[in-house]
């Protein structure tokens, strides 16, 4: 066992697995575990097939930039749509989603669909699929390049497997506390997160060399969250003054 190679592979792939886990958890909490696991499992199957069929040349055949751009664009489209709706809801320009009513409606829908109802949301599954496929591809690239350059591929694979198991365990531990977050807040945060991931990946696909690479995702998230909250306060203030004006003039 080459511990340096295993360590490098562990650290490199752990970052990618955490990013994939973030998206899988986001889909799980908003669209349900079936949708999330369906998308993630399909991505793992596609990834495994690619690795088995193509082997080492995968690194040269798959154009990561194109995959990053396509996945990033989809994440941007979905994430920014959610962010837009969340801003409208929180500023009072759109009715806040009644979580109890929505839950009752979902239960009724599931009851009507019966035992045969699969209950998989296409958009959610696609989001989880994209996130896991892209991060999985990046992880495979890390393992192959680190492993082959040091001539210690088994060590690189071992480091990556340990990272995978630890990240999955962390996901299981975080799932329950995250489920207590109110749905409207969760959708706001998920909108910010998907937009940030989309911005980062689409940017990478376009050729932008982000500052400190993956760490930029946190900065983009912080920017979108702060800017959205400021915009919500501004919209609330203008709405209040518009209502006050209409009361005065009446």
């Amino acid at each position, binding site marked *: 066992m080459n511990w340096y190679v295993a360590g490098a592979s562990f650290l490199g792939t752990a970052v990618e697995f955490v990013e994939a886990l973030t998206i899988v958890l986001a889909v799980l909490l908003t669209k349900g575990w079936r949708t999330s696991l369906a998308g993630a499992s399909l991505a793992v199957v596609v990834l495994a097939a690619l690795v088995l069929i193509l082997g080492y040349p995968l690194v040269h055949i798959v154009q990561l930039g194109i995959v990053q751009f396509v996945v990033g*664009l989809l994440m941007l489209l979905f994430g920014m749509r959610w962010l837009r709706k969340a801003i409208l809801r929180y500023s009072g320009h759109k009715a806040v989603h009644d979580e109890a009513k929505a839950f009752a409606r979902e239960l009724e829908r599931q009851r009507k669909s019966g035992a045969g109802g699969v209950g998989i949301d296409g958009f959610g599954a696609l989001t989880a699929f994209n996130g896991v496929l892209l991060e999985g591809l990046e992880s495979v690239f890390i393992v192959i390049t680190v492993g082959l350059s040091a001539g210690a591929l088994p060590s690189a694979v071992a480091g990556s497997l340990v990272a995978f198991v630890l990240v999955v365990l962390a996901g299981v531990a975080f799932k329950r506390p995250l489920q207590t977050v109110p749905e409207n807040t969760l959708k706001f945060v998920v909108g910010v997160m998907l937009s940030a991931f989309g911005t980062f990946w689409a940017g990478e696909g376009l050729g932008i060399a982000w500052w400190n690479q993956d760490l930029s995702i946190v900065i983009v998230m912080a920017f979108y969250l702060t800017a959205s909250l400021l915009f919500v306060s501004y919209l609330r203030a203008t709405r209040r003054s518009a209502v006050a004006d209409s009361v005065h003039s009446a």
Partner: protein
Amino acid sequence: MRALKVIIGLIYDDKWLVGGIAGAIIIAKSLAVIGVSGAVAGILFMVLLFGAVLISVVREVRTKGTG
């Protein structure tokens, strides 16, 4: 199939948002091609994308009033 419908619906419903994203992408690609530094191009890309959300929200508020 449903995901495809969502994408088509999104383009139809939120023309300003989708148009803004497309504009941000064109500008970001141009900056990357002419060799603007990653930090500058990244910040501009991020700001332009949020600008697309901002315009889309303002359009909706103006069209539908104070709600």
